[in-house]
């Protein structure tokens, strides 16, 4: 079965810093480089925090104190590896079922004592699919639907 678009995003960047520093900046200063328009709160963001532990969250805190926890930290292995869930669906709402969340893995590789390669993969983006399609009308005649429903069914098969 050919897929129109692979449900993954790969990105990498090489930074002029030690692996420890590259890891520390990524986690401690996440809010300093995350694009500002990425905001599910009703108000402006006062602070974004990456909680440095498995079971922690990445969350935005608004200027009125409201919070949005939009990622769960799944792996925290300084200074080499991070995995967190991506709990934001296509309609910009938090996913209710963790099975509908995608996943981001960041790997830090020391190229030299002062150069680090940071590799990012955002995978299982199609896990957001069932939510997207289930909320659309269930008509079967449109092109594309059989494919999506197959994938939807496949998720139950592998998930249970």
């Amino acid at each position, binding site marked *: 079965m050919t897929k129109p678009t692979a449900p993954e995003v790969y*990105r*990498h960047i090489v930074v002029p810093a030690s692996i420890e520093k590259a890891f520390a900046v990524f986690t401690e200063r996440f809010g300093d480089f995350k694009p500002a328009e990425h905001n599910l709160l009703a108000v402006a963001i006062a602070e974004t925090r990456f909680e440095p532990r498995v079971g922690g969250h990445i969350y935005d805190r608004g200027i009125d104190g409201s919070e949005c926890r939009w990622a769960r930290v799944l792996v925290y292995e300084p200074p080499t590896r991070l995995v967190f869930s991506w709990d934001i669906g296509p309609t910009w709402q938090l996913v209710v079922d963790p099975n509908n969340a995608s996943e981001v893995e960041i790997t830090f590789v020391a190229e030299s004592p002062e150069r680090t390669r940071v590799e990012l993969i955002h995978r299982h983006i199609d896990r957001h699919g069932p939510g997207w399609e289930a909320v659309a009308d269930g008509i079967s005649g449109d092109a594309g639907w059989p494919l999506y429903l197959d994938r939807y069914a496949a998720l139950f098969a592998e998930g249970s």
Partner: protein
Amino acid sequence: MQTYHLEDEWAILGDRTRRAIVEHLAEGPLAVRELADRLPVSRPAVSQHLKVLKDAGLVTERAVGARRIYRLDPAGVAALRDQLDTFWSRTLAGYGEVIDRSVEEAK
């Protein structure tokens, strides 16, 4: 398609009215008038937003008699993937800048 190709997809959904339109369409297909009835904006404004969403590949339209019915594009996963691709390229670029700055400060 061409017009908005260079526009940031996150910015497209960053607009509250457009997000509201997508949320309404998530419940089922709607005509422009039905959307305008549910939103605090005029019909021409809804049409404008729908055009942006359509060009971004987030909604599709279909003529039913004299009405145009809009629905979420089933290829939304591809659209989401594109959004995330843009998000991460911007985030990593910002990360690189923060690293550069903190390396400068350490000197």
